[in-house]
């Protein structure tokens, strides 16, 4: 009884609110300080007209220089005339009052003539505030292009369009977020991309119901196949060259307004370990660095668990010459290996967190204080052995070699379950952990495409650009797993350089 009463009352109140809102919409807008409403009179025809805009979104220079002089001095009688006298490209005439709010808040100026209030005219005068294109900071490369995405969607699209000036480059735009109204652009190359992938992305993005999108990572997390996986399933890049390159392979890029990172999907695990610089170097060098990177990652994940496992269970594995070093450095330490390792690993994680949160200049100091002072001091105090200090430092260093920042975070985390298993079961535990990890990776998909490809399912041809990067000659076809509509991308094999022999 009581419940239903309240419910009823609540409902009534709600509907009343809505009514109020609609009637008060004008008032609601005018409550904001940056809402401007000005009434002018045309000098020639004496028609009174009103312009409304949000001053924080509109470039008033445009109004003053390209709109007002014409509106005041040129002849116009009807609202439709405005389209002809204004030297602005985006001028629209509409009769739909619902559009007013939307247009106002996307940087349009709304113009109404006092005599005819049914029709509105919008012309765009957006203010472009944003930083200039700068050097990539997360995915820095020594050679190659030095431009990175910024927060403005148009500018980012411009960067990509410039690299792929073809009509096949399709940019589809949707809006996501009830409050943020974030513009999201889905970009792909028609004729190269697999339509199924495009549909998946479109459908997943259109299904998003969320109040606000701050960054592309939101979209990335929401459209991921497995949200409980520590592995990122869409690649994010701040390099327009990388995005252009993968678009031409047949992948899909998603750019979100307000985010300097483009999302790339579908992706594979291997791709996270390939830096874009790999393609700019000779293939032998590039392959060497890739192998080093993979080795570094394996090292980073496994070295401390192996240390714990060996020292706790498998002393037989230690060569005689190493025994002396290990035992002498461990003898004074009061903790079992696992605590010793956890202590150091957590110290390193603390340093990393502190370094990442602090301003650059203070961050450097923290690095030095942490690295040198805490490291040596903890060894001297007998809390950790110096052998372990080297391992942990190397492991931390190795986890930084990943070219994509996100996977580096995953590697940071992965070490800890392995450590726990190593403590409980020794090397068998590590093997167990590895099996679990492998199972997880095998089951993981990115846009429904296998994440561990080309290892599983085995696609031998795709090994051409995985652990090693074969020369461009061997990359005549687009990756198999993208199921591109036109797999060939280079002239067929066998053309010799047509140099003239002299």
């Amino acid at each position, binding site marked *: 009884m009581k419940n239903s009463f309240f419910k009823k009352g609540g409902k009534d109140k709600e509907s009343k609110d809505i009514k109020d809102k609609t009637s008060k919409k004008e008032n609601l807008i005018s409550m904001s300080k940056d809402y401007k409403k000005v009434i002018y009179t045309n000098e020639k025809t004496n028609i009174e007209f009103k312009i409304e805009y949000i001053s924080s979104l509109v470039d008033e220079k445009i109004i003053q220089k390209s709109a007002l002089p014409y509106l005041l001095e040129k002849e116009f009688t009807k609202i439709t005339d405005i389209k002809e006298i204004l030297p602005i490209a985006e001028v629209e005439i509409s009769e739909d009052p619902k559009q007013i709010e939307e247009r106002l808040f996307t940087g349009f100026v709304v113009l109404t003539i006092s005599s005819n209030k049914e029709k509105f005219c919008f012309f765009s005068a957006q203010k472009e505030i944003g930083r200039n294109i700068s050097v990539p900071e997360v995915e820095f490369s020594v050679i190659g292009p030095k431009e990175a995405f910024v927060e403005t969607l148009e500018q980012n699209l411009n960067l990509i369009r410039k690299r792929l000036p073809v009509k096949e480059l399709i940019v589809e735009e949707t809006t996501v977020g009830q409050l943020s109204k974030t513009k999201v652009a889905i970009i792909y190359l028609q004729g190269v991309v697999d339509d199924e992938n495009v549909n998946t992305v479109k459908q997943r993005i259109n299904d998003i119901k969320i109040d606000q999108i701050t960054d592309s990572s939101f979209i990335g997390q929401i459209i991921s196949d497995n949200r409980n996986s520590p592995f990122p399933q869409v690649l994010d890049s701040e390099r327009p060259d990388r995005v252009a390159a993968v678009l031409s392979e047949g992948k899909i890029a998603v750019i979100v307004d307000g985010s300097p990172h483009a999302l790339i999907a579908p992706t594979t695990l291997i791709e996270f370990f390939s830096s874009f610089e790999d393609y700019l170097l000779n293939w032998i060098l590039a392959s060497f660095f890739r192998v080093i990177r993979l080795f570094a990652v394996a090292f980073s994940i496994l070295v401390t668990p192996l240390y714990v496992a060996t020292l706790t269970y498998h002393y037989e594995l230690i060569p005689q010459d190493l*025994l002396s070093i290990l035992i002498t*450095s461990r003898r004074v330490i009061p903790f079992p290996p696992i605590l010793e390792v956890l202590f150091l690993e957590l110290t390193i994680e603390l340093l990393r967190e502190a370094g990442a949160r602090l301003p650059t200049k203070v961050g450097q100091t923290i690095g030095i204080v942490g690295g040198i002072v805490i490291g040596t001091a903890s060894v001297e105090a007998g809390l950790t052995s110096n052998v372990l200090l080297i391992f942990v430092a190397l492991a931390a260093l190795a986890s930084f070699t990943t070219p994509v920042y996100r996977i580096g975070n995953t590697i940071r985390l992965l070490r800890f379950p392995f450590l726990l298993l190593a403590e409980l079961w020794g090397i068998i535990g590590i093997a167990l952990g590895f099996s679990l990890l492998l199972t997880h990776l095998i089951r993981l998909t990115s846009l429904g495409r296998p994440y561990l490809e080309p290892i599983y399912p085995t696609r031998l041809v795709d090994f051409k650009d995985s652990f090693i990067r074969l020369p461009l000659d061997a990359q005549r076809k687009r990756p198999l797993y993208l199921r591109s509509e036109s797999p060939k991308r280079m002239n067929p094999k066998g053309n010799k350089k047509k140099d003239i022999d002299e």
Partner: protein
Amino acid sequence: MKSIETILIMAIFTLFLSGCVEKEILDDINLIDGIGFDYVDGKKIRGTIVFPIFIKDKPPENRVLTGESLLKKEILQDIQLQAADPIVTGSMEVVLFSKELATKSGITELMDPFQRDPGVGSGIYLAVVEGETKELFEGKYGVRGNSTHISDIIDENIRNEDLPKTNLQIFLADFYSEGKSPFMPIIKKKSKDVVELTGVSFFNKGKLVETISSDKMFFFKLLVDKYSEGLHRVKIEEGEAAIRSIRSVHHYKLIKKNPMEVEVTIDVQGIINEFNGDKMYPNLERKLNKQFEKEINQECLALVKNFQEKNIDPIGFGHFVKTQIRGFDYKKWHESLYKDLVVKVKSNVEVTEAGVIQ
């Protein structure tokens, strides 16, 4: 939901079952790296273990503990009473037997635990000690600990000198093979800080029956192993030559079946490293070759004869003949055939270089 259950169950199993695994934290155990057995009386044996105590920036100190008992494992228990940390056998390097023990009571029972213990590597070295093993372990040799030093001596002699390849694995294979008898190197404490390899001992059914001295080892190795880096001195009228970088291979061939006759061909290559005569002539070289061949033939034949008399077969003729004859009977072989076996040794020596200045 189901996956959460699975994860929970797995986590529980991982946590609880981990109690079944025994922890051996590296710095809380006594890693014995050498063990030695001495003869006490007909029943009892005395075991000596040695484990290193590592000290920073210094060679490890050797701690020696002894115990007396009937079984090897019991010895360890006996010794454990004297040690603060658990004794583990996983980083063993050498197992030594005193010559007295090996001759009088044999080593068969003592070998047993080593083949059962999965922690003991099959690459460890076995050796017979002239004198007592306890005394030997109490010395101080080298900078890397006593056992490591002894194992390094054996290792070095196998690699570059005259000792044929041997370790626990090979010893056990020979030990259990009917057609071959096992052998072990002999070491001796020469002084407080020197250990020396003095020869090779031969076993018959776990008992030491014969030894050869280190100067005969060269020929024994020619017969059972191949050389990749060896040195030997050959004396002729004009002077004495040292032949270095000896490479050798041997082949056995069964040439007659009744009575059995085996021909051993040994091919040797080497470089003359040192010659204390006047000058090296091509025909001197030939003379050297001849002399070397003669020596090999004589000494090898003498070795084989000696083995036949003692009824041991460290060269593995029995094993070889079995591979050549269908329906081979080991019983007959041990009874009479081996003693009647005729062995011929043929050798080809080739000196490939005689030095740069001639």
